[in-house]
């Protein structure tokens, strides 16, 4: 401390000593508030919790996707059976009643790989507890509740299976809240040839419900069933693009998640929209067939 620090102080200390008590209090209050604000801003960058690794499906190594905590309104479901990758049967833990669920935002892979996809879905879900994220618990026309499903660790089931190549993203408008994420996951799975995208059946001409083409892959997978004219190129470029025609009709013969007004095939086919409305594939004159209300 300098010898003259008390008898001959600097301007700042002098002004502090000579300020009125009210001024000093104001300065300290403002300083404290500013300190709290700066501290809050500085600490707001701390991550809110450890990231949970996404579950991986056997043989895929697929991981990722956002994690969300179940909300208070979300229902906990104990999975009892998995008829298909996009269909889950379970028991509502709160109401203790059976519930049939159709996972929003995904479609089944073609039949040739459906068994494998189901096995992987079973591995993820069988006997597990999942969270049903939906505002509407009432079943749609197909008798199933259309909802987002969260795995017990908070990962989106739809994202997980699409990312693992065990399901296809439903790119129809309003199919899911995280549609962009699902489409990106599908593109990644396709790029890395994961799951169905690596199978031989994805490159081979499919049966009645699928039509493989040699067209370059595209990430957009329309949900409608417009027949695709195969593009003749010099060499096939596997894996083929998943087109609407690769979307298999569900086991009940009804095409699901169709969109009214969208092209469809074959004329006369029955479908159910994402809202659960019945639809019929109707052709008028020379116009291509489109989905109309049943």
């Amino acid at each position, binding site marked *: 401390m300098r010898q003259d620090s*008390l*008898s001959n102080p600097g301007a700042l*200390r002098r002004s502090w*000593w000579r300020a009125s008590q009210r001024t000093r209090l104001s300065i300290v209050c403002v300083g404290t508030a500013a300190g709290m604000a700066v501290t809050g801003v500085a600490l707001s960058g701390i991550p809110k919790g450890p990231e949970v690794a996404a579950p991986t499906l056997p043989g895929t190594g697929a991981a990722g996707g956002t994690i969300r905590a179940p909300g208070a309104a979300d229902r906990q479901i104990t999975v009892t059976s998995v008829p298909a990758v996009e269909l889950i049967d379970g028991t509502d833990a709160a109401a203790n009643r059976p519930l049939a669920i159709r996972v929003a935002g995904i479609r089944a892979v073609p039949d040739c790989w459906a068994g494998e996809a189901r096995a992987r879905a079973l591995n993820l879900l069988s006997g597990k507890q999942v969270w049903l994220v939906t505002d509407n618990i009432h079943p749609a026309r197909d008798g199933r509740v259309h909802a987002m499903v969260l795995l017990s660790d908070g990962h989106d089931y739809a994202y997980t299976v699409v990312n693992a190549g065990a399901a296809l993203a439903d790119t129809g408008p309003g199919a899911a809240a995280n549609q962009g994420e699902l489409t990106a996951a599908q593109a990644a799975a396709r790029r890395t040839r994961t799951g169905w995208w690596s199978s031989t059946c994805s490159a081979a001409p499919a049966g009645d419900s699928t039509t493989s083409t040699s067209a370059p892959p595209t990430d957009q997978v329309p949900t409608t069933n417009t027949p695709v004219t195969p593009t003749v190129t010099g060499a096939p470029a596997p894996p083929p693009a998943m087109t609407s025609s690769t979307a298999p009709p569900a086991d009940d013969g009804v095409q699901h998640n169709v969109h009214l007004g969208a092209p469809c095939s074959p004329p006369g086919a029955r479908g159910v929209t994402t809202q659960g409305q019945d639809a019929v594939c109707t052709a008028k004159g020379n116009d291509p067939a489109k989905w109309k209300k049943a």
Partner: protein
Amino acid sequence: MNAGEKAEPAANLFRRSTDLLAPETDPQGVHHLDLPRLPHGATPRGLGEQGLVRTTGWLQFRAHPISSGLITALISLLLTPVVALALLPVQPIVSGLCVPLFPALGYGCWFLITTWLVPASAARNTGIVAARELKTGTWVRVHGMIGPIGQVARVQPEQETASSTKDSVERVRVSFAGGITTSWPHDHLLHTVEPQN
């Protein structure tokens, strides 16, 4: 707040203290060159080389000084929720420990500083007195309502002529124990204090 606050004369906050002079040589060797003493004979904590004593505390409610340590603890307590809430998702235990630890840490830092690093005395303002009424042995604030204090050793009247008005202004020359001397107008108001330690 303080009874003396209203009577505090308007001061130029940035005016440099040219009125405090270095210790002058006293040919008679009077007692104002001795160091100031507390009533029980000990030298006060925070005593500087020229006899002024550094003090802690800047807030006084009526006759009761508010400890700066308490204010430090209070400010630390206000900061605690900000830190605790930010840490809660990642370190819940540390977050909970913040609540008692922060104020204690703030008070501890204040105590360490005012006791060891930059020693300072606690002092209580007791009233206001004009410079001409100062008496030997009185403790006063040298710069304002807070800040360093000194023990008056000698008060001498002196005359000064104001250049602008040609009027004569009465001033007093005050010497403090420890040697430092200053000159104030005779009606300059000073806060008398009671050093605590």
